[in-house]
């Protein structure tokens, strides 16, 4: 339905511009994409990834290729020039494990017959490539689903507008898919899968029929041919079938062809393994049979690590930060797997291993995660470009910027490995596929600094970037006996040692405004949905791996919450991790839940309406008894404690945190906050956009839950809009990486860095009612701070030294 408001002319006014826009569109798009003339890109910092290294210079693109590149390259006359002074050019990024361009059915499909060609599942009309392209990704490697023991051909595709499959193809038969241990969990399963693969390959080498591999039925998907035979190749053919090299049986089975190609070295076998035993077997297979192997997955290199290093087998790793649902075979990944695999000396590239096409847009988030895990930025950039191209067999076309190479490149307004850096321009085969206005920022990747491993009782720290109230300023911070004694431009006491950390940021301990610290079970109770009497502080265990992970990740202040299983969930507390007294505020907020996590058909309430009624009863003091059968004394204590805790919320002493996600839930939470005049905060409000005015007028804070892949497009933008209206936005989550990712994506979506940094520090402390000076660098406050390699909003940054109350936290103690 279309509205014409008689009351206001706004609609028609907007309509007018839309009309004009539509009208002018054909003119703008008159030049068909892909036929752009020669272009010169000038004045940018160019990472060539070749022996030429990195320099400021020019680059000329003609006919889809790089015609010339150099520091003092003269620009030919009459050629279009794009001035990119201050920007950074890198080769187009490559996602080595993607499902971009694949139809939903094709993403599921796998087979153990090898008859699949992934190109048959490619739909060039899908539009998610734009989001991927916007991140500077110009090529992706796609292959059949990883469940097959010999799943068919994978291909390397462009990330660009296409009219046909052939427009997209960079390399058709790029690799042969295989996996060990994705189906089945036991060592025996893995070994039998390995044995089948080995025997088949040996048979082909000896010129025998390798037989069928791993059963006749496809493992998943719908690729069974209607004729009842094995799946046939579909529509995409590049000019007939190649001659069969092995003896043809009555029914052609491409599996043998495929194996022959692997044995001949025409294309590598891409083998996904996760367990150390399967990794060991895979390495043996490659060395004994002398076949090209590319390994991927690898959750735990285990004992096979040194053999992996000496074998020279390249690996495709990822995802380093899990952003969506984690498949079973990746659930047991051990902390530090990434560093162990990539520091072994093997050549490596990154894959997003996404479950949907648009997942590839997280490639730079994964790259940042790699940097945060300790990989050198230059190595990560190489993994995204040069190494990726070589491992995929397209090194002659892609991966470096040099004369004659395909003009696939990305221009960033700063450090390419920071996902918050915006993309200025993306080019695929010389065609500009994404362009945006952006102002160039600093392009230098962060480097760690030297910091003493022990600190005296009194010292000073000087940095060019001390985070004070959301802004980085040069300052010297004096610390004595765990407290900040002065904070200014020059040191106050001359005899005291000043540690100069240069431009490394000094940041107060970050705040996770809502977290379970991996203790969800101990904060869950499902006897009665009014659990107002429970206090999370009473079960806080500060020795869990998640707690240590928070400290390692620079998060020193936690809003520790009872679970969302009850409508009145209980009392949140704040923790100051690693402090002499880690209990900050034992009774910081009341938590109330309107999401469906607190609905149960087996007890009241089972609906949103019931949850609202229950909270109305609780807030108006109408619940005077428990439904539990308790001894009289216990019941009286229970009811008294409930009243006390709810009373503290009603009086405004404690804020009320409402878990609310959908529109109706958010609306109901705001109604309750307004009606009972609560100091409110909304936890995880996804559909928040319609309520910003009300949230602002009620002075309600937003505690943002980590961004999920499905709301990547809207959620960070909504948070940015909320912050722009003056709403306090703070961040929640159980992992430092996810919390920072949410904040960084909000910045990319338009939130100011100041507001995002305040949301990670001082504002969050205010929202949760933490003691004055918490999560802030201010005189008189605790000297709890973290030296970072770069701003925490740069996902590639990581903490190098963590100081709590003036004392360095022993890194060894924090190891998992």
């Amino acid at each position: 339905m279309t509205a014409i408001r008689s009351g206001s002319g706004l609609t028609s006014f907007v309509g007018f511009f839309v009309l004009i826009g539509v009208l002018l569109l054909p003119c703008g798009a008159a030049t068909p994409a892909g036929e752009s003339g020669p272009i010169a890109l000038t004045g940018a910092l160019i990472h060539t990834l070749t022996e030429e290294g990195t320099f400021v210079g020019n680059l000329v693109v003609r006919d889809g290729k790089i015609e010339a590149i150099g520091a003092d390259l003269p620009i030919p006359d009459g050629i279009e020039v794009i001035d990119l002074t201050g920007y950074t050019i890198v080769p187009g990024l490559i996602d080595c494990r993607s499902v971009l361009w694949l139809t939903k059915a094709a993403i599921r499909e796998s087979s153990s017959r090898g008859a699949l060609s992934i190109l048959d599942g490619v739909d060039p009309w899908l539009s998610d490539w734009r989001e991927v392209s916007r991140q500077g990704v110009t090529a992706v490697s796609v292959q059949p689903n990883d469940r097959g023991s010999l799943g068919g051909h994978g291909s390397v595709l462009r990330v660009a507008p296409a009219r046909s499959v052939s427009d997209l193809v960079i390399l058709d038969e790029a690799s042969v898919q295989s996996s060990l241990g994705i189906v089945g969990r036991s060592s025996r399963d893995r070994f039998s899968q390995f044995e089948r693969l080995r025997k088949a390959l040996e048979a082909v080498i000896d010129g025998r029929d390798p037989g069928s591999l791993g059963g006749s039925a496809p493992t998943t998907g719908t690729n069974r041919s209607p004729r009842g035979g094995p799946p046939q190749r579909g529509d995409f053919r590049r000019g007939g079938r190649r001659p069969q090299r092995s003896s043809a049986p009555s029914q052609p089975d491409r599996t043998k062809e495929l194996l022959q190609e692997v044995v001949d070295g025409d294309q590598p076998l891409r083998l996904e393994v996760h367990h150390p035993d399967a990794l060991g077997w895979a390495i043996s297979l490659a060395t004994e049979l002398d076949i090209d192997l590319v390994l991927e997955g690898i959750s735990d290199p285990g004992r096979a690590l040194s053999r992996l290093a000496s074998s020279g087998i390249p690996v495709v790793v990822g995802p380093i930060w899990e952003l969506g649902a984690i498949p079973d075979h990746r659930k047991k990944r051990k902390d530090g797997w990434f560093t162990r695999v990539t520091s072994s000396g093997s050549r490596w590239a990154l894959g997003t291993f996404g479950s949907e096409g648009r997942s590839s847009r997280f490639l730079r988030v994964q790259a940042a995660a790699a940097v945060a895990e300790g990989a050198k930025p230059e190595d990560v950039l190489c993994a995204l470009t040069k190494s990726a191209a070589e491992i995929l067999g397209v090194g002659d076309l892609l991966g470096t910027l040099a004369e004659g190479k395909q003009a696939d490149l990305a221009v960033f307004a700063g450090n390419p490995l920071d996902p918050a850096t915006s993309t200025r321009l993306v080019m695929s085969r010389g065609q500009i596929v994404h362009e945006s206005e952006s102002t160039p920022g600093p392009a230098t990747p962060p480097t760690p600094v030297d910091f003493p491993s022990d600190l005296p009782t009194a010292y000073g720290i000087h940095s060019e970037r001390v985070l004070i109230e959301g802004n980085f300023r040069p300052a010297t911070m004096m610390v004595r006996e765990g407290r900040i004694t002065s904070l200014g431009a020059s040191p106050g006491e001359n005899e005291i040692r000043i540690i100069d950390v240069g431009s490394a940021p000094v940041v107060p301990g970050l705040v996770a405004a809502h977290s379970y610290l991996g203790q969800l079970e101990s904060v869950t109770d499902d006897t009665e949905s009014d659990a107002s009497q429970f206090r999370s502080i009473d079960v806080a265990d500060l020795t869990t791996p998640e707690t240590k992970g928070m400290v390692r990740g620079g998060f020193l202040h936690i809003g520790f919450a009872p679970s969302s299983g009850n409508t009145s969930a209980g009392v949140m507390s704040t923790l100051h991790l690693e402090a002499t007294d880690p209990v900050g505020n034992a009774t910081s907020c009341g938590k109330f839940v309107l999401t469906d996590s607190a609905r149960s058909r087996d007890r009241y309430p089972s609906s949103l309406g019931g949850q609202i009624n229950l909270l109305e009863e609780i807030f108006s003091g109408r619940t005077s008894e428990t439904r539990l059968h308790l001894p009289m004394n216990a019941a009286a204590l229970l009811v008294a404690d409930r009243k006390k805790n709810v009373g503290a919320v009603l009086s405004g002493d404690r804020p009320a945190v409402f878990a609310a996600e959908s529109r109706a839930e958010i609306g109901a939470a705001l109604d309750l906050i307004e009606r009972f005049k609560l100091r409110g905060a909304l936890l995880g409000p996804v559909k928040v956009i319609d309520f910003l005015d009300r949230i602002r007028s009620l002075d309600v804070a937003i505690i943002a839950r980590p961004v999920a892949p499905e709301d990547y497009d809207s959620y960070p933008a909504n948070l940015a809009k909320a912050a722009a209206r003056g709403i306090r936005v703070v961040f929640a989550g159980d992992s430092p990486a996810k919390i920072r990712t949410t904040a960084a994506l909000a910045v990319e979506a338009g939130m100011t860095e100041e507001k995002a940094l305040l949301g990670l520090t001082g504002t969050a402390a205010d929202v949760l009612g933490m003691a004055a000076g918490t999560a802030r660098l201010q005189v008189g406050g605790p000297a709890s701070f973290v030296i970072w390699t770069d701003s925490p909003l740069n996902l590639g940054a990581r903490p190098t030294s963590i100081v709590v109350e003036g004392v360095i936290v022993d890194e060894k103690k924090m190891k998992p």
Partner: protein
Amino acid sequence: MKLAFSIFWGALFAVLAFFWTDSSQARSILYKAAIVHTMTGNPLQPGEVFVQDGKIVAVGKSVVVPSDTKVVDLGDVTLLPGFIDAYSQVGLAGGSDESTREVTPGFSTANVIDWKDVNFREALAEGTTTLAASPGTQNVIAGISCVIKTAGTASMRMIQSDGALLLSLCSDPAQGNRSRSRPDSIYIRQPTNRMGVVWILRSAFDHASRNLPFESGAMIRESLQGKRPVFSVSRTTYDLNSLLALGEEFSFSPVAVGGHEAYKMAPRLSKAKVPVILGPLSTGGGQGPEETEPIWNQAGILSRAGVELALAGGNLLTQARFAHRFGLTRELALKAVTRQPAELLRVADRIGSLAPGLDADLVAFDGDPLEFTTAIRWVMVDGIIYEQQEEGGSNEENDL
């Protein structure tokens, strides 16, 4: 050449857009139509409706308006009040029942509306401008419905947050409840059969009317005394008989919702002055847990017996067309989706007919509204016109 062409079209559109902007800025508009069904008397042929700031200012064969008023001549169009669905579950979020309890008079649907529910748009598209978002039938005393517009800004859309009290005098609340069948659970839900339904209702009414302590007893008592309408979902003759009996016993006047078998006892309902909200009208097999037997001409039978009749449950236009085709008079078929539900919901002073002071909720038909091939040209809610969306087009501005 191409550029010149574009400039020409751009200029043309700019001119058109100017007029368009100008026209919609008018706050008062006089609509002239071939037929205007006011629902307060005989249709006006032709008729004029004068709309100002979202309200109807005047209706008549010829309305005198200030000279600078914008006049829109709709030609052959027939104008009707916007349709009203007196029993709907559209827009409810987070569950339409609080099914862990049997008696939930405090369950207020006004709390749980998702104003952007896509079903509002569907209802609007077929001319429904107002609906009563009602709780489901899992509980014996289910809760309170609210009366809301299907379009407009959220703050304006709530007409009556304290609508009707919904009872489920039918077998629905007993579905799936088994006494002592779940020894592993302390949770046993009542009622377990239809007798239990009536027992819970009767004892709740009894407690409430005698001021005995009972959850939300005051609210039930007020409802029985007539503070708000009491709707009861009752489909079979025996449920309807129980409803009449309870009505006499506790002296309240209920409205029967559903009423598929009401036609079998039309004279008795008429005598007891119990209106029936029929619907959804269909003969597609037995309905509800009781497998009731609706027939096509039940609306006609009820109206001839003198029972007040509204149609509800979605697809109002289609229902009215079928009801007319199978025996309901033209006027009553239109009334059953406009003025009658407004009266039953006690919001007739706001909506349901075309009269001065009422909301400007209109439906414009290209011809006879009860003819199956007639298209809706547009629907107006509070003076704002919503047009049928062009195929494939969508307008962000009016995303409901």
